[in-house]
């Protein structure tokens, strides 16, 4: 059961579950429309529709479709990290006519509510929220792109987002997935990003956010990088003494 599956302006969330879901092809087609440059990641969408997948052993995945007036208008892909207590937001996208009406904000709220339910499913009281990777304005190729990225950050901040001030590089793909061949992603490169926490009520109430937990949760549990991977060392180099202490205990 979804948290509150009808938006204030009447859009309905449908969860896409299972490889035989009648909505799976609809989700793939909408994904291609909204994220045309990401088509190579369609196998990821299909994998997430399974909920639990052997290539994503530490996450409980969701694929949502939004429908309004018999039209498919949005897609959301996110995961609860079962080994931590927060989620990872992979994609949120709406068709152009549906943007700017508060639906994205509502969808973020529904994501947080779902993650709370997931946390309870995995034996916790509530989730801390979720992390999302957002392109940095400083890396933009031109002013138009820079402005677009600023707007993305503004959207996340309006949703309560907190930019985690660590160096973060988004890996091209989860390591070792069975459904994608590295050759399928040829030409893709890791990219510098902002790592942004969208906190839940619980997350927003904390006086101390654990950066190490967030960084390891994203890199190790979602992307399945080795704990000594250069991206992790770079992210946490300024906490070096502690990070190495932690690795020594692992």
């Amino acid at each position, binding site marked *: 059961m979804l948290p509150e599956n009808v938006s204030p302006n009447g859009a309905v969330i449908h969860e896409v579950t299972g490889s035989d879901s009648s909505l799976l092809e609809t989700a793939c087609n909408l994904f291609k429309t909204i994220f045309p440059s990401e088509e190579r990641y369609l196998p990821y969408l299909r994998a997430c529709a399974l909920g639990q997948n052997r290539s994503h052993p530490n996450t409980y995945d969701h694929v949502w479709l939004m429908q309004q007036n018999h039209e498919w208008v949005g897609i959301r892909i996110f995961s609860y990290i079962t080994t931590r207590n927060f989620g990872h937001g992979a994609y949120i996208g709406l068709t152009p006519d549906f943007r700017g009406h508060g639906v994205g904000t509502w969808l973020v709220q529904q994501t947080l509510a779902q993650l709370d339910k997931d946390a309870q499913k995995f034996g916790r009281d509530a989730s801390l929220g979720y992390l999302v990777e957002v392109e940095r304005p400083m890396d933009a190729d031109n002013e138009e792109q820079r402005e677009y990225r600023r707007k993305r950050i503004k959207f996340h901040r309006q949703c309560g987002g907190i930019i985690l001030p660590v160096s973060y590089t988004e890996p091209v793909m989860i390591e070792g997935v069975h459904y994608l061949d590295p050759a399928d992603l040829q030409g893709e490169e890791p990219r510098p990003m902002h790592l942004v926490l969208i906190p839940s009520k619980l997350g927003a109430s904390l006086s101390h956010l654990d950066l190490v937990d967030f960084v390891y949760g994203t890199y190790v549990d979602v992307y399945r990088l080795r704990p000594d991977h250069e991206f992790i060392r770079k992210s946490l180099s*300024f906490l070096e003494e502690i990070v190495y202490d*932690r690795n020594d205990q692992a």
Partner: protein
Amino acid sequence: MDTNLLAQLRAEWFERLDQILSRENTIPLSNLKCLELCEARCCPREGMRRMASEKIASPIVVLLPFEMEYLLDKTGANPAVFRRWPIDLTPDLTIEIGILDLGKPCPFLKDNLMCGIHEHNPLDCRTFPLLPTQNFNGELAWELGENCPSLHLLSPQFSEHMKRIWRDLYSVLPQSWWDLYLFADHWTGWPISADIDHVA
């Protein structure tokens, strides 16, 4: 890394900080009853981790770009007293921002809770209980440190003076510095060994 650019930035910030401090003589009185009422709630110091949250105003002091270097230059302090947090100014240029936190408490706070470097103290300290922030539109905005014991006495003239300093700085403060500064509200400092219990 462009050492010429770094040197230029450093020189520019030293000049700005000189200018801010040269206004010291004309800063209106804050009217805060620091000596009578203050318990150094905004100064990171030994023992603060065990204090109740209402007794703490700010366990973190975030310095401006190159303010750490400026303080080192002016006070002769040991560089090891500061935490250093890297921020990217551009994709190819990273600088370190000085921070004082509960793991490295303020080395300038004296036993009588007075500041040992009042003449050069950081702008973050100097501005308290005014708290600069950045609104969703990327504009400078203000909050108040509600648990400052003499907040109700704060002089409007002092407030306006400090706000003017920040307005003057705003256009030269990098966004990555604001990201760090805003995050510091959600961070009590470097982890301590006792917190280490959830390794990858």
